[in-house]
């Protein structure tokens, strides 16, 4: 908080410095031209009139007695006039002159010159140092004389010196700190310590191509509180940092995969495409690698269209504006941040043991009326009765996490720098999964002249990650740990991976399904996938005129990646494959962005006007290749190179693409008297992704605010701020448009076998439709907000209501299957509305040395597909499925996008009589194939059978509301923070049950909960009867049996910190700080969801046993000197 405010303060100070210094110094003494008198008669003796003025003002006249001799009677009118005017009149009439020194007015003989009144004020010089509550000097703090615009600012070391009239009162202020008033009296040295302002209203927030005070905002913006503490959490990405912190920003982890990046959704799902917000780092759109959280100074989310409009085409899903730490003039500072922790799974599924496995399948076969497989017979296959492995324990591990960061910063008066090096490594909680990031940043700025500033910011990052497939119902690591035969050991006697059965018992293999040894799934492939990214920004800024600035920024983003995956032979029984493969590929991409920006700011009295014009262009190109070779004699690491392969089956795959975008933007901001605020912008975007007829489009935005609390009539000491604001705007969305959607390349391969002997032939076909009429998708947001502050800004409340329309929603049109083109064209198919309410409340207070701050937010999201006017059908059936069989998702107007469309079920049949009696109005038996223990499906259509006609809509995976609560406490040297976060109104499709509860597949082992499956003696079960056949479609029907509530409340983080006492540290270096802390991430989860983790994703997600979010305990150190 402190250093953030410091930086903005500096920035703002630089902007206003000139205006401040332009004023002359005036006395605190009431000037004679501002002091009025009314005289009660028109004819005066001089002495008489001086006495009279002395009586009604503070002035004293000082004169030699003789000077009043021979002076005429003064005639003056009786109206109200200033002392100055009166004295001028007297001087002219009596040939006198006056000299004011403080409150004394000296009278002398006139010289006939113009300067008849000389004013001279006695002054004192005050100097001192301004520091913050941590003892750090505050350069750029403002010192003004109360009641005047006179003042100065502190230098780099926080020192100031000011000459003021005797008796003046000084006001010390700095953005982000509470201002303080000190009377000068007779002091010549005044040192001041400013306290941090606990309200955020004075905070300067970065908006598109500029900054503004939070209290003056017209648009909807949320900012991340307490960045400094957030980065101490054992997290890996900026997305992690945002989760639960800002109303209207939904972050869904989706997976605990160490390399996974959570998904950020700002104000609901509008498009099916790449629903990712735009990241802007230090003023330029950012497409680079993971940002080192320790580099982040502040993070602001632009939520409504009017706020984001300036960033246009890529901003339709919101903008996340990140400012990285800058150096500041002064001594070079060093920060060391380090933490280390351990991660573990807080909940794992449990599979049947060997005996339970065999007996469950015996009863399942018996129920189906078939003969049990001999593999499960203890007499024929005694091997199968001994549990040798608990597979779940074999795939999970305790994963360490380490983060280290060092930052150096400093500068002279003319230049500032900051450089950092970060290292982040975490191992996943599934074996052999990890993520590692090296990052390096160098940022500097120079004031070359008073008018010319240049700067640069280079970020180099290198990451490697190794994840695990957990999403596939066939080859997912977790689901295979359920499937795998518990009688099998992990390794055989030769140290090789063991199959479902030993080779000598291969005749039983069929009973155990085509299961992978789950440990081999994690350990066997040799994967490397380094990614190198360089992201660099350079800019120059020039003040053409006092109020007109030109800025040119250029950024380049370079990516280089390679993927190498060696899959050894799989000899063991289960899914054997006597072939090894090497898949290798590499690619690179580059993108440049060039912004030209003109800014004009001018104040006319109480009117403030700002004009901004931007022209920006960006171009991206990408090229990559990949190939597969196979049949390696040996599988040693050193042999895994393509030149050692015996066979190349396919021609290497290669692709390239390009993407260009240009935009011209204009913006006007205007405010009047701190009461009325207005902003309007317009932009024209042009993209290479659309046909020339539709590639250019125009998008406007407007916003305004009325600060009622600044009005003259508003006079409440309890309410410090009351502001009403509204905005409306449109943004084009390019991210949902395919690169060449107007002219899709044909698909090719060389997989067609022809001839004798059969050889490969090249083939080309049309697999996707093009759409030359594709238009920009348009996101339109209207927003009403109310900002309030009470109790000396201790309590702040922001409430908002928004409606966000996505018009011309781009989705892949589902082609009529008879057209024979498997993939439909991207098309503007309809309209989606997201609307919601967002409420943020913060309160800060202190009781003695105990300081506390509470910050809570809650937001609702209501998503509805309004129409599908240009879709080929009245609804969209989404292809996401469990094993191609159960397709739960449908989008239809009137319903949320990606809704579940399922057949309701009403429990389980208890008896044959109940099945017989289950008829429709015509007497038709609705489920003739059912047996007791099968699910009762509801015949919604009443047609006497269970079919797709019986499906009804049942919500979606997107939360109806999300909330977060931060509690920060400080007492003496201790700090404690608790962060809780949750979602509600989420429905999740637990596809895991399809295989893990189902004995009708290939004979896989099952989840231990099937021991509670229905049987005549267990009539209250919710799991249908175990059977190797499923004529009722218990598992095959897309029913709500799979659907579960996915609400959760998580104690996301708990941190306890201790700051070493200053006295101890001043010996190292004055101003040093050391803090140590303990942190627990994902301490507690409360959820009704029966799957492994409720955070499986949002949208078209089926949970087949997803990588769970780890629980992490860590300890860390912050050291600044």
């Amino acid at each position, binding site marked *: 908080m402190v250093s953030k405010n410091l930086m903005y303060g500096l920035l703002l100070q630089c902007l206003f410095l000139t205006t401040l210094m332009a004023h002359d110094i005036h006395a605190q003494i009431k000037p004679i031209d501002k002091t009025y008198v009314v005289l009660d008669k028109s004819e005066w003796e001089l002495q008489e009139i001086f006495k009279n003025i002395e009586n009604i003002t503070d002035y004293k006249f000082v004169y030699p007695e003789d000077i009043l001799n021979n002076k005429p009677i003064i005639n003056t009118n009786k109206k109200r006039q200033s002392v100055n005017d009166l004295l001028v009149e007297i001087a002219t009439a009596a040939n006198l002159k006056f000299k004011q020194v403080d409150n004394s007015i000296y009278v002398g003989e006139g010289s006939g010159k113009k300067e008849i009144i000389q004013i001279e004020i006695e002054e004192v010089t005050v100097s001192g140092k301004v520091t913050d509550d941590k003892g750090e000097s505050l350069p750029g703090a403002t010192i003004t004389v109360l009641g005047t615009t006179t003042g100065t600012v502190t230098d780099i070391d926080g020192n100031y010196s000011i000459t003021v009239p005797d008796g003046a009162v000084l006001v010390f202020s700095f953005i982000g700190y509470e201002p303080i008033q000190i009377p000068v009296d007779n002091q010549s040295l005044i040192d001041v310590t400013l306290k941090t302002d606990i309200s955020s209203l004075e905070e300067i927030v970065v908006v598109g191509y500029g900054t503004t005070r939070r209290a003056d905002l017209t648009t909807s913006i949320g900012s991340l509180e307490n960045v400094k503490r957030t980065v101490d959490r054992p997290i890996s990405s900026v997305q992690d940092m945002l989760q639960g912190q800002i109303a209207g920003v939904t972050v869904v982890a989706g997976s605990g995969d160490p390399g996974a990046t959570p998904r950020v959704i700002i104000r609901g799902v509008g498009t099916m495409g790449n629903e990712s917000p735009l990241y802007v780092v230090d003023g330029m759109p950012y497409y680079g690698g993971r940002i080192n959280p320790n580099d982040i100074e502040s993070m602001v989310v632009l939520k409504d269209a009017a706020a984001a409009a300036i960033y246009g085409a890529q901003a339709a899903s919101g903008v996340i504006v990140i400012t990285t730490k800058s150096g500041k003039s002064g001594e070079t500072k060093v920060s060391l941040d380090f933490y280390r922790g351990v991660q573990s799974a807080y909940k794992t599924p449990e599979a049947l043991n060997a005996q339970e496995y065999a007996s469950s399948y015996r009863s399942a076969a018996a129920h189906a009326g*078939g*003969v049990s497989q*001999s*593999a499960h017979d203890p007499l*024929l296959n005694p091997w199968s009765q001994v549990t040798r492995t608990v597979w779940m324990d074999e795939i999970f591990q305790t994963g360490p996490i380490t983060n280290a960061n060092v930052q150096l910063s400093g500068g002279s008066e003319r230049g500032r720098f900051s450089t950092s090096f970060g290292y982040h490594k975490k191992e996943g909680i599934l074996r052999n999964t990890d993520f590692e990031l090296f990052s390096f940043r160098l940022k500097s700025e120079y004031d070359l002249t008073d008018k010319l500033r240049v700067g640069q910011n280079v970020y180099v990052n290198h990451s490697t990650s190794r994840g695990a497939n957990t999403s596939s119902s066939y080859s997912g690591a977790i689901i295979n740990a359920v499937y795998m035969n518990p009688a099998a050991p992990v390794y055989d006697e030769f140290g090789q991976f063991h199959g479902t059965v030993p080779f000598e018992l*291969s*005749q039983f*293999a*069929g009973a155990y399904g085509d299961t992978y040894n789950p440990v081999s799934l994690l350990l066997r492939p040799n994967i490397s996938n380094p990614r190198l990214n360089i992201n660099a920004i350079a800019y120059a800024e020039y003040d*053409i005129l006092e109020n007109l600035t*030109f800025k040119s920024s250029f950024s380049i983003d370079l990516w280089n990646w390679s993927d190498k995956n060696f899959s050894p032979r*799989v000899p063991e*029984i289960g899914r*054997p*494959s006597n*072939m090894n493969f090497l898949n290798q590929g590499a690619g690179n991409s580059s993108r440049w962005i060039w912004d030209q920006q*003109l800014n*004009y700011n001018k104040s006319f009295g109480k009117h403030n006007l700002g004009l901004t014009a931007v022209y920006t262009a960006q*171009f991206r190109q990408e090229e990559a290749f990949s190939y597969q070779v196979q049949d390696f004699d040996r599988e040693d690491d050193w042999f895994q190179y393509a030149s050692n392969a015996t066979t190349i089956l396919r021609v290497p795959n290669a*692709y390239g693409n*390009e993407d260009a975008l*240009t935009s011209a933007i204009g913006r006007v901001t205007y405010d009047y008297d701190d009461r009325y605020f207005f902003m309007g912008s317009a932009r024209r975007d*042009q*993209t*290479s992704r659309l046909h020339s007829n539709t590639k250019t489009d125009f998008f406007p935005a407007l916003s305004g605010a009325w600060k009622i609390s600044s009005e003259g009539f508003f006079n409440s000491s309890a309410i410090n701020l009351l502001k009403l604001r509204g905005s409306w705007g449109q943004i084009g969305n390019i991210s949902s448009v395919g690169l*060449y959607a107007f*002219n*899709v390349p*044909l698909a090719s391969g060389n997989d*067609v*076998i*022809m*001839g*004798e002997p*059969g050889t490969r032939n*090249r*083939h*080309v076909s*049309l697999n996707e439709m*093009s759409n030359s009429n594709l238009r920009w998708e348009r996101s339109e947001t209207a927003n009403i907000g109310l900002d309030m502050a009470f109790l000396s800004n201790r309590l702040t409340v922001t409430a908002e209501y928004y409606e966000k329309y996505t018009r011309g929603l781009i989705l892949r049109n589902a*082609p*009529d*299957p*008879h*057209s*024979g083109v498997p993939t439909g064209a991207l098309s503007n198919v309809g309209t989606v509305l997201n609307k919601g309410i967002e409420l943020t409340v913060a309160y800060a207070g202190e009781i003695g040395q105990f300081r506390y701050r509470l910050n809570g937010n809650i937001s609702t999201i209501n998503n509805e597909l309004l129409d599908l006017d240009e879709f*080929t*059908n009245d609804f969209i059936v989404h292809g996401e*499925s469990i*094993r*191609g*069989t*159960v397709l739960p998702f449908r989008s239809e107007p009137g319903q949320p996008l990606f809704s579940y469309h399922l057949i309701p079920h009403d429990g389980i049949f208890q008896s044959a009589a109940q099945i017989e009696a289950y008829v429709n109005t015509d007497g038709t038996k609705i489920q003739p194939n059912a047996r007791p223990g099968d699910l009762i499906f509801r015949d919604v259509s009443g047609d006497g059978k269970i079919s*797709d006609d019986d499906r009804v809509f049942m919500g979606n995976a997107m939360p109806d509301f999300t909330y977060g609560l931060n509690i920060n406490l400080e007492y003496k040297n201790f700090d404690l923070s608790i962060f809780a976060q949750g979602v509600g109104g989420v429905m999740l499709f637990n596809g895991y049950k399809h295989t893990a509860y189902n004995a*009708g597949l*290939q*004979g896989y082992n099952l989840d231990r909960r099937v021991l509670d499956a229905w049987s005549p003696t267990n009539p209250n079960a919710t799991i249908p009867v175990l059977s190797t056949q499923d*004529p009722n479609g218990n598992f*095959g*029907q897309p029913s709500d049996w799979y659907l579960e509530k996915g609400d959760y409340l998580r104690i996301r983080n708990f941190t306890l910190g201790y700051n070493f006492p200053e006295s101890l540290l001043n010996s190292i270096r004055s101003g040093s700080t050391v803090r140590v802390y303990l942190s627990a991430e994902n301490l507690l989860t409360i959820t009704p969801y029966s799957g492994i983790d409720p955070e499986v994703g949002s949208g078209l997600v089926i949970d087949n046993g997803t990588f769970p979010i780890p629980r992490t305990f860590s300890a860390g150190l912050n050291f600044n000197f």
Partner: protein
Amino acid sequence: MKHIVKLCLILLIVSSSCSDTFTELTPLGSPTSGNFWQSEEDAITAVNALYEHWGDDNLFGRAFMYLIAASDDIMQGRTDAAAAAIRNFQATGQEGRMAPIYPRMYTVIQRANNIIKYVPEMNISETLKNRALGEAYFMRAHTYYWLAPRYADHRAGIPIVTEENMEELSFTRPASIVDNYRQIESDLLRAAELLPYFNTYSPTDLGRPHKDAAHAFLAKTYLYWGHHDASKWSSVVTYADMVINSPTGRALINTGNPAEDFASVFYVNNNFSSEYVFSTVSSNERGQILPGVMLENTGWGLYNGWGTFSPTLELYNAFEEGDHRKKATLLEFGDSFSFLGNPRRYYSGNSRTGIQVNKYMDPYRFPEEVHLNPNGNYVTSNLNIPLIRFAEILLLKSEALIMQGQNGDGPLNQVRQRAGLASKSGATIADLKQERRVELAAEYADRHLDLIRWRDAQLAYSKPATGRNHFNKTDPDSGFKVYQVWPGRTFNPQIHHVWPIPPNTIAISGIPQNQGW
């Protein structure tokens, strides 16, 4: 102010001069519809795409076999509720085992339509043009030939998509399957005109459609059509004779060694023997997984067989005494065979009937590297799988003759003699049915459709399927007990003669579902 004006001007010039061409980009990496259809290579690669699905698990790899496994000859070899739903006629149509069939077959039709639309205008050699068009007409017809009898009936055909209406956004079902047959007929007639004879292809092009194949499928289409229109029986004979009398010398493999001759039809070396008419082409890199699908589950720990289908004891018992085809078609406990180059005697802990299909075992007789794909997830081999072969042409002719009240003995007895059986005289339709069953068991000739068109399905399927439950499943000499593997099923000839169109297709296209499903 001068500076501002200058700057604005510069900005304006920069923005207007580069923007339009700056955002005008040509797709990289692959041709697009706009710049394709130029060279001979374009025509050839477009035609090749017609056969991409020979390597598709979800079509001829095994999906069609799941439908054939609804018959009384073979059944699912593994626990599989979705496959069981198909066999029990309780499927929804969305089962992963069958749902891909319908839409994927229509992609072949689309590819053929594009060729038929664009190739005639291309500036390429006339020979290549004719061949390309011939292949496209053939494959379009062939695709409808597979779809129509499985998804269409006298109450509704399946949508006919041709080069003329392919750009339309939606399609409707024609009145009857006969509309589909007419389309197939016309396409095959054109294909027969345009295509060369099989023996004029170079070795690298073997496997492409040819005149005999067009005639063969005409004959079989008329056979199906004959059940709707008796006037078509004579056409069966006409086109069967065109194949029988083909100058390419189509004939049964008959060296007078019945013990070997029938089995050798399915040898890798005989992929293009005299008995070849039309097959899915395969190699040990890509193509047909059917041999691996039929092989013992996990292949006794030596190769990843899938054991997906098991022949029934009813099929085993259908063979007459002395029929050499029995051993060539089925493996039972104790049978000696060569497996991956080593002698072995058959036993199985996985086969639910104690029997395995033997027809496609030739690639497994040799060491793995000779004919097999070492990738256990894609178990292809060098064996091509016949879609129609010469013996079936003889049986088509015989059946059509009998159906017309004529004598069908000649072609029928050719097939019987090769199998080492005595000739029949005055063969009845029952004799013909028996012959088709044992000659074409577990092949794409499709026993299930035969039973339906003969109206024998309801009775046949009401009987349970049986198998042998061996006392010791690892002992080739083990005794067994016959047991019921699958109970009798309810087949409603008003409903179950066709399959449900996938509900997803119904939902998107809006066409009506087959009645009763």
